[in-house]
């Protein structure tokens, strides 16, 4: 377990330093494609699912 955690952290420590683009960024930035807009809802859904799971087990 500890090995997996350490390996994951080591992998995360890599960065993209050698992989820069050479062209300047576009003057008018294009629309971004974010994915993290519903994080709070997802956390709430996780908590609700957990609550349901334990309630079901009690019954």
């Amino acid at each position, binding site marked *: 377990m500890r090995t997996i955690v350490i390996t994951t952290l080591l992998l995360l420590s890599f960065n993209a330093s050698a992989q820069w*683009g050479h062209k300047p960024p576009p003057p008018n930035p294009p629309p971004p494609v974010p994915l993290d807009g519903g994080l709070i809802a997802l956390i709430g859904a*996780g908590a609700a699912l957990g609550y349901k799971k334990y309630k079901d087990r009690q019954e």
Partner: protein
Amino acid sequence: MVSFNWDSIKKFPQGIRKDKEFLRFIGRFLSCLIVFTFIYESYLWFTEQQRELDWITYKVSELSHSLAVALGVANCEFSCFMDGCYIGVEGKVINVLEGCNGLKLALVYSSYIIGVSGWKWQSVVQVIVGIIVIQFFNVLRIGMLVVLRDIGGDLYFFFIKYVFNVLIYIAILFLWLIKPYIDRAVYKDVN
């Protein structure tokens, strides 16, 4: 005269005891989320100090670019800067920022899995499989967006953008819902 209901007082600790399991889950879920977020934000802070782009955003962008090329987008360009990557045909590029790499969703997913089952090797396997599934959907989403940006109008682009986002969230909920069945089928575990 107001009478005091002693029964409700007596039942209170029983209620807490009944919910102890749930409170333990919430404690593990939120503490994992806080620790994972702290590690990730520290990593982002570190890369920002180095004036570099984080490796996850870069890899997701690179794979999405490869997918878009494989799907037939001619002259698909790919360039990365400190704030993110640009993928697509000139004049029709999309911007992949840190918030697009799907890792924050993966952290919430992983925290739930560990919150339910604790730190077991089964949890780690499910976390790894789940992260691969989330990133697969994310690369597919960005690759498809590049294709659609190339061939379609903005309305279609935004429609697909939201549909793909919802699909990834549904995929996470689905993975959470099938977790007890996987535990039972693969690990003979009822937890």
